[in-house]
C-alpha cells in the first residue's frame, strides 16, 4: 500500500506544490499582504449572508479545482508508470485517487473550513451546508476525469489546421522560442503572472491621482510586478538549460546573447509598458514612465543573472527574493532617481551575466 501511495504522491502532489510555488506566493502576498485578519473575517461574514458573493467564492474554488485537475491529467497522460493504477482493484484505486486529489485541494478545503467557522459564529446554517456540500462535490470532481485519463493514455495531440499551415510557411525566430514555450507548456504560470502584474500596474495607476503620490508609487508597483515575474524568469532559465542546451554551443558573442535575453525579457514585460504609456498620470512625463518600465526590465534581468550566478531550485529561488525586494524598496523610498536605478540595475545584470554565463550550469 505504501508504494501505491508514495509514488503518485511524489509525482503529483509534491510536484504540484513545487511547480506552483509562484502561484501560492502571489496569493499569499495578495491575501495576507493587503488584507488583515479582521478584513478576511468581514469578507467571509459577508459571503455567508450574500448568495452572489458566496457564488463568487465558489467560482474561484472551481477555477482552482480545474487547475489541479489539469495538472493531474497531464501527469497521468504523460507518465506511463502511472498506468499501473489500472491494475489496482477499483475500490482501492478510487480511494487512493480521492485522497491524492484531496491533498491538491487542501488550500480550498482549509478556506472552506474557515468560512464554515465564520458561518457558525453567525448561525448561517444554510450557507454552511452549501459550503460543505460544495467542498464534497469539488473533492470528487477529479475522479471521473482521472479515470478517463487512465483509460486513454498518451492521447494524440491535435495541433489544428492553422498550426500546420503556419508551420509549413513560417519559422519561429529564436526570440519567440521561450514565448511559445510559455503559451504551450506553462499557460497557467503565464496567465497568473501577467494578470497579477497587470492588475498591480493598473492598481497603482488608479491609486496615483487619489492623493499626493510621486513616481515612487509607480516604481514600487513595478517592483511588485517584477517580483511576480519570478516564476517566468525561472522558467526561462529551466527551458534553456534543459530543452535548448545546444544554445551554448552556438557561436554567439556574450554581448549578442545579452541583447537576445534583453529582447526576450522585453517581450515578457511589454504589456506593462503598454499600460504605463497609455495610462500614465499627467504629471509624470513619458521619459519618467519609461524609466519606471526599464527599472522593471532591469529587475527581471537581475533575477535571471542571479540564477546564472548560482543555480537554485525554484522554491529556494523564490524564497530568496525577499531581502533583495526589501533592499529595492528602501532604494525607492530614499528617492533615488528611477532612471538611475534602472541604469544601475541593467549594468549590474550585464556584469553578472558576462561573468556567469559560461560558468553556469543546471544542477539536478
Amino acid at each position, binding site marked *: 500500500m505504501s508504494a501505491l501511495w508514495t509514488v503518485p504522491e511524489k509525482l503529483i502532489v509534491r510536484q504540484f506544490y513545487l511547480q506552483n510555488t509562484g502561484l501560492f506566493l502571489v496569493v499569499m502576498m495578495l491575501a495576507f499582504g493587503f488584507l488583515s485578519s479582521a478584513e478576511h473575517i468581514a469578507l467571509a461574514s459577508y459571503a455567508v449572508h450574500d448568495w452572489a458573493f458566496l457564488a463568487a467564492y465558489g467560482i474561484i474554488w472551481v477555477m482552482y479545482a480545474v487547475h489541479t485537475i489539469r495538472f493531474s491529467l497531464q501527469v497521468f497522460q504523460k507518465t506511463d508508470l502511472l498506468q499501473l493504477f489500472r491494475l489496482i482493484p477499483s475500490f482501492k484505486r478510487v480511494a487512493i485517487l480521492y485522497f491524492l486529489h484531496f491533498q491538491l485541494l487542501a488550500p480550498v478545503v482549509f478556506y472552506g473550513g474557515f468560512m464554515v467557522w465564520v458561518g457558525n459564529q453567525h448561525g448561517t446554517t444554510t450557507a454552511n451546508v452549501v459550503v460543505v456540500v460544495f467542498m464534497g462535490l469539488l473533492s470528487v470532481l477529479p475522479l471521473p476525469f482521472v479515470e478517463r485519463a487512465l483509460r486513454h493514455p498518451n492521447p494524440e495531440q491535435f495541433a489544428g489546421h492553422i498550426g500546420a499551415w503556419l508551420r509549413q510557411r513560417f519559422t519561429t525566430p529564436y526570440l519567440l522560442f521561450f514565448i511559445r514555450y510559455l503559451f504551450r507548456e506553462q499557460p497557467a504560470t503565464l496567465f497568473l503572472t501577467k494578470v497579477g502584474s497587470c492588475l498591480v500596474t493598473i492598481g497603482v495607476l488608479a491609486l496615483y491621482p487619489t492623493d499626493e503620490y510621486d513616481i515612487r508609487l509607480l516604481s514600487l508597483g513595478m517592483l511588485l510586478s517584477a517580483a511576480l515575474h519570478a516564476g517566468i524568469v525561472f522558467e526561462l532559465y529551466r*527551458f534553456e538549460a534543459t530543452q535548448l542546451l545546444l544554445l551554448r554551443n552556438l557561436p554567439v558573442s556574450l554581448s549578442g546573447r545579452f541583447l537576445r535575453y534583453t529582447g526576450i525579457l522585453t517581450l515578457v514585460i511589454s504589456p506593462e509598458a503598454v499600460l504605463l504609456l497609455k495610462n500614465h498620470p499627467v504629471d509624470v512625463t513619458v521619459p519618467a514612465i519609461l524609466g519606471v518600465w526599464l527599472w522593471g526590465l532591469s529587475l527581471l534581468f537581475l533575477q535571471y543573472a542571479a540564477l546564472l550566478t548560482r543555480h537554485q531550485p525554484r522554491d529556494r529561488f523564490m524564497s530568496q527574493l525577499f531581502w533583495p525586494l526589501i533592499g529595492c524598496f528602501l532604494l525607492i523610498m530614499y528617492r533615488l532617481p528611477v532612471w538611475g536605478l534602472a541604469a544601475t540595475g541593467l549594468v549590474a545584470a550585464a556584469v553578472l551575466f558576462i561573468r556567469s554565463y559560461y560558468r553556469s550550469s543546471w544542477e539536478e
Partner: protein
Amino acid sequence: MLTVQNFRKEYHNRLVLAIPQADFPPGIHWLKGRNGSGKTTFFRSVAGLLPFDGSLVLEAKYDIRRQPVDYRLRVNYGEAEPLYPQFLTAWELICWVATTKQAPTQQIDELIDLFGIRDFIKTPIGTYSSGMLKKTSLVLAFLGKPSLILLDEPLITLDHATTKAVIDRIRQSREQGTSFLLSSHQDVDAAELPVDSVWVVQNQSLESITQPAGL
C-alpha cells in the same frame, strides 16, 4: 587539433573527470568507457555546454575561453539523447542553428536528404520517434564548416540505411579535413570507418590506448 590541459570537472564536489594533458591530432578518435564513466560530460565540456576548470584549445589558435565565438563556430556536437523543445519543428531548429553556424543553404538540403528527415521536417518534434530525433541531431551536428565534430553514440536508434549514411558521411568529412571524437558501444567495421586512435575514459581520467589498425 584539440589540446586539453589541466581539465577538471566536478559535480557537487565529486570529481568526475581529471585530465592533466591530452592531445588529439587531426583524425577520428574513438572514446570508450563504461556507462557513467564521464564520456558525455567530456563531450559536453568540449562542446562548450558545461563549465569546467582547465583549458581547451582548438588548432592551437582557438581557446574556448578567449575566443568563445570562433571556437564554437568550429566545434559541433551531436548528443547521445537529444532533447529539444517539443513544439518546434526540425526545420525551425535547423534554420536557427544553420544561421549561427554560417551553413550554406545547399548544405542544409543535402543533409536533410542524406539523413532522410524531409518527410517529417515540418512537424512538431514532440511527435518524433527516438530515431527521428537522432537523425535531426545528426543534421544539426554536421551544419557549417566545423573543424571538430563530437558525436556521442551517433549510431543508437538508427536504422541500417541511416547507420551506413552516418559512417559514410564521417569518412567523407574526415577526408575533407574535419576531425571527430566519437563514442559508441556498437561495433563498427574498421574497413568502413578507419579510426586513428582509441581512448578510454576510466578511473576519472582519459587515457590513450594502443594505436589501432581498425576497431
